[in-house]
């Protein structure tokens, strides 16, 4: 018996590892996966762990993801504890020294991004699921998309120096396309500066900041806590008082409470995907904003919101 187990262990230790040509990158969300693709082009093979229509706080740490991470040369994570519930056990079981936090193949995309809502006072869980390192939904500001793409460019260039010029030209191209798109988006939103909106979860501060929207309340009484009747009544009163006509809901939340709020206040309930892949049409980072802003503007015009 003892010999048998030693033999088993020996066999376990000797199975060889397979190699790969293009750089294997795993991103925790589809947004980061697309930004990596924008810069990496065909020199990278990118996979995403979570889907764009999934609540990124509650992804399951499925063993199939361990297989993806096991062969990854680079892991791009959102950071700010967004993935705290699922990414650490996956990384730990990946048996991959390259992508452990602190190693060269681990990129926390938030490190160069503009982060909002970093708590400046003592926080407790009485405030709900507050992110102690700031709001992790920062990719919804195109400026942050550019910063993350730059961080990815730097990381890819260091990981595969031979392709650095290729990555740099891809980044420059993306930068230009994003700048053009931003002009388009700014023009689209220009008439609606300071528009008051309500959102379900606290996913949109960077989006609101960038496009000069004013989030006056949330359907969740506290981050991560499901709607309560008392809070909903207060919110309805506040929305009526401030004449709020737009209610943004992420696609993974239940529409029952938002719809009853919409009926009470006459606000339009708008399901806006916060991530690439949230709808079929949203195939990349730029089309994410195209899609969301188009729906938003249509809703504004429909409700006559100000």
């Amino acid at each position, binding site marked *: 018996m003892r010999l048998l187990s030693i033999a088993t262990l020996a066999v376990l230790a000797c199975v060889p590892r397979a190699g790969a040509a293009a750089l294997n990158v795993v991103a925790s969300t589809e947004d980061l996966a697309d930004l990596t693709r924008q810069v990496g082009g065909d020199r990278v093979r990118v996979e995403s762990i979570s889907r764009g*229509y999934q609540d990124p706080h509650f992804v399951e*740490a499925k063993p*199939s993801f361990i297989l993806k991470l096991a062969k990854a040369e680079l892991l791009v994570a959102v950071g700010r504890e967004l993935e705290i519930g699922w990414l650490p*056990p996956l990384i730990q079981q990946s048996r991959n020294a390259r992508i*452990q936090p602190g190693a060269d193949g681990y990129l926390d995309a938030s490190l160069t991004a503009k982060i*909002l*809502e970093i708590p400046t006072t003592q926080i407790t869980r009485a405030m709900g699921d507050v992110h102690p390192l700031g709001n992790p939904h920062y990719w919804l500001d195109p400026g942050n998309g550019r910063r993350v793409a730059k961080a990815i460019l730097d990381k890819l260039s260091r990981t595969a120096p031979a392709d650095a010029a290729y990555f740099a030209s891809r980044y420059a191209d993306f930068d230009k396309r994003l700048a053009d798109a931003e002009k388009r988006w700014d023009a689209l939103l220009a008439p609606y500066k300071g528009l008051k909106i309500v959102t379900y979860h606290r996913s949109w501060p960077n989006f609101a900041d960038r496009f000069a929207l004013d989030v*006056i309340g949330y359907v969740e009484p506290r981050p*991560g806590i499901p709607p309560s009747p008392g809070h909903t009544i207060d919110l309805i009163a506040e929305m009526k008082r401030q004449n709020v006509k737009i209610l943004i809901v992420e696609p993974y939340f239940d529409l029952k409470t938002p719809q009853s709020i919409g009926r009470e206040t006459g606000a339009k309930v708008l399901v806006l995907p916060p991530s690439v892949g949230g709808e079929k049409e949203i195939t990349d980072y730029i089309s994410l904003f195209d899609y969301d802003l188009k729906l938003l503007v249509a809703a504004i015009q429909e409700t006559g919101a100000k």
Partner: protein
Amino acid sequence: MYQRVCFVPGLVLAASGVLALPAAARAAGQSPAVGTAPTVADDVGELRRELETLRQDYASRIAAIESRLLALESGRSAPIASETTPAPEPRPAPQITAAVPAGAATGGAPATLPVYGGGAASSKIFNPDISAIGNFVGAAGPSPGGGEPSLNMQEAELSFQAVVDPYARADFFVTLGPDEVALEEGYITFPALPGGLLTKIGKMRDAFGKVNGQHAHTLPFIDRPLVTTNLTGGEDGLADAGISLARLIPNPWLFLEATGQVYQGSSEVFKAPTRGDVSYVGHLRAYQDVGESTNIDLGGSIAYGHNGATEDSTTRLFGVDATLRWKPLRRSIYTHLLARGELTWSRAGASDGSFDAVGGYGYLEYQFGRRWTAGVRYDSSERAQEPGLRDEGGSFILTYKPSEFSLVRAQYRRTSFADSDSPANELLFQFLFGIGAHGAHPF
């Protein structure tokens, strides 16, 4: 000491990053791409764009301040948003915050510079994640064996988890029971040793089946199944000091992981009479996604070791487990279904021969609301040392989760014990509540 010396300049750098002018930080964030030769025209264009964004930024900020002033003057109450916000920063200047060390629980930009040289300031940063989980269990109704106490603080689990060095992390789980303190688990993990071996050394719950590896607060029911009580060591289960090696078996079809473990032989089941009589556990896990919502998880386990009944009597355990999960990704926080079954065979040697016993459970749970889950479990198990005696039972379980950090659970349990005439009808209830930072649990 070396670490601390290194850390001080690191902090200064980080702090200066926070204090740096936002505009400068922004400019740094948009420096020309590596490998391109930016022309003057490009530079001017970029500067112009930056000026434009700055202008817009400040215009919008002034507009916000104006509207805020107006709101103040007209004596309006604060908007709802501010009630739920932990101190909303008044339109914070764009910060490029690279300064917060990942994993520092306090987070945020440091208000004042820490006091250097006073050990307290920097030592806190290296403190492990600490959590405490209370598990309060109550019971009512007749039970032949006495069963659980009426009101019981069954355990408080303390956990301490942190990275040790670039090569390892450590996890400690200490349980404080009504009358004992025990190290439930305490081990170091080397996540990336050569050869793809995930290595754990310390006191661990054995990789035997599914339920055995789970701490009480992660179980979907209040008690442990009958088969655990009868064959694999009850509440404490198979847990021992030893070494565990786990490796992925590469294949093009599915996730396959083989685990081999060697233990001292000092658990509820295995007791080594001499130093050489260590016990062994082997586990094979196969996992496959069936679409994005559904997956199948299969396992086979074997455990072998001396049981201490006589000098050379041994116990062999074989187990199989199967789990089917369904969780639609779009509705993942509202609904899921889980079906699980485990079967365990035991062959325990004693002074008068050896006894075979078999037992298992089947469990089905369905989440029907964001906070509500219902489950049903069937139990059946023979007893390890008493051949022919078989206990049987069933449970209904209802769980309500106010948040991720607490739950209330009720379980109706009916058990027919082999040596008792009338079945035990019991109602159990449980309050589970956790504080602090508790590491995520394996899937």
